[in-house]
């Protein structure tokens, strides 16, 4: 079974973001980078499938050349090789990104049985790249998967909603997007890191397209920011909290 996981390099932010002076990006000068939380589950799923069924796990990302760092980290977890579509460092819109991914996937010799995305990226959350890729590749897609089994050429998937679990199936080759909770992602070991250094990362170039969803600026969302009313310190403040809970009718 050959699996492809698509990743995105994203900053690892703290509780508050800062924007660059031109308000077009977040300030990353003291931030590290990683991948989106759901994508860690995607890689783990890919590693597990290859462990169980054999085959290869390929990673694909589109981003700056520095994204090699994220690819190496995930190669250290057990992926076979990686492809990096190097951009000009600018953020590409979903259509441009999807088109570049599709070109790269079509250029691969391997015809992947399963392509896995994270349910959403931490930074842009456009909710569409995976679907555009599915359309372009004429493949079925199941999104927001929290439990998955591959049997007899069918991806049997569950999605968790307020009312319970929904069951979907997609015949391979298929695409799924997965959510945190699907599995517990493992972290790299030192031998894994050492092996990852020797694995292949294919660097590719793609031409940017004129964005149709065109970012103009970013702004920080207004937080409630009235600031909490501090009721006091330690257990001494409990009576004050009980009063508040009474007022709002909590009991």
């Amino acid at each position: 079974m050959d699996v492809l996981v698509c990743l995105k390099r994203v900053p690892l932010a703290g509780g508050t973001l800062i924007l660059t002076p031109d308000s077009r990006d977040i300030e990353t000068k003291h931030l590290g980078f990683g991948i989106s939380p759901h994508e860690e589950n995607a890689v783990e799923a890919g590693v597990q499938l290859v462990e169980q069924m054999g085959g290869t796990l390929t990673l694909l990302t589109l981003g700056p050349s520095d994204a090699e760092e994220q690819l190496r980290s995930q190669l250290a977890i057990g992926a076979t090789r990686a492809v990096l579509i190097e951009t000009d460092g600018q953020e590409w819109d979903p259509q441009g990104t999807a088109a570049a991914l599709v070109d790269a996937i079509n250029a691969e010799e391997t015809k992947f049985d399963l392509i896995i995305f994270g349910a959403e990226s931490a930074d842009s959350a456009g909710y569409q790249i995976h679907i555009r890729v599915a359309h372009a590749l004429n493949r079925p897609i199941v999104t927001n998967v929290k439990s998955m089994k591959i049997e007899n050429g069918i991806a049997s998937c569950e999605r968790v909603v307020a009312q319970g679990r929904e069951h979907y199936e997609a015949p391979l080759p298929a695409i799924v997007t997965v959510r945190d909770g699907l599995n517990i992602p493992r972290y790299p070991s030192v031998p894994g890191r050492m092996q990852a250094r020797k694995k292949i990362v294919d660097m590719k170039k793609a031409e940017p397209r004129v964005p149709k969803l065109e970012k103009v600026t970013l702004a920080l969302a207004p937080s409630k920011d009235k600031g909490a009313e501090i009721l006091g310190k330690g257990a001494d403040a409990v009576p004050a909290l009980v009063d508040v809970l009474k007022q709002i009718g909590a009991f």
Partner: protein
Amino acid sequence: MILVLIDHDRGEIDALSLRALTAARKLGQDVEAVVIGNDGASLAAIAGEFGAKVLHVATHAAITDYTPMASGRALANLVEKLKPAAVLAAGSPRGNEQLAHLAAFLDIPMAAECSEITLGSPHHVLRARWAGNLIESANVHSDLLVATVLSFSVEPESINGAPASVSNFEPALEPADSVVKILSRDAGESKGGVTLSDAKVIVSGGRGVGGPDGFGNLEELAALLGGTVGCSRVVTSSGWRPHAEQVGQTGTKVAPDLYIAAGISGAMQHIAGMKNSKTIVVINTDPEAPILRYADYAIIGDLHQVIPALTSAIRQAKG
């Protein structure tokens, strides 16, 4: 005309769709609605009440339950026929998914999670990113605007309109469009009857709880308040609690009446999942924890002392 997708589960409306309808109405054009599947026809009254003149009902033998790609195809067919200025849906997982299929079929852009929409050439939107912590101002270069509406950016407003007139149509589905659909369902991951999404009170614990044993006190308090226990991502990734209890961008997004966050510093992705709660109470040793910015009330202190004291005080108060 603005076309709004009303999402439903076997005939039961997703209330977030009403927010999308309200947002559509504010664009100053006629609003028509569309439901996918026969069983949506029953929603003509409520669609009308919230301002839709017409309710288009896509019926097809292959559409027996939620079938997202088919929804996209149906919407594409309808767009071709009606030539709306925009297609909107709720910024829910299903709303986003169905409109993404539409946008993919038409190969046009889609703007997800918009808090503000201005039609024009290009269209302009404000949309949420970074789990709602950033607002992107973006231009959408396309005749037709495909966008979903950020759930809590608009309150649903009824105009007590007459029931929408129902117009059935049969989309021209390809076999591939209905391959992926809901085949069956199980009941929820029920815990003592109250699920996280339904709970009116959530007592949530983070790293500060210190380990799986520390959650006993939180459970006791939650039970006393008729609520349930939630937790932050670090708690589930440490294996202290099941993933189903995780609140946040990667877990469940919740909006209870009362959210008590104990020992949670407030990573962005956690905030994203709970900031719409009505009243937020924080118990934390760190008076600078980011979560305090979103809280209504806070006690600075050790949850291991505060929670038991609170539990016994409430017990006393209840008599």
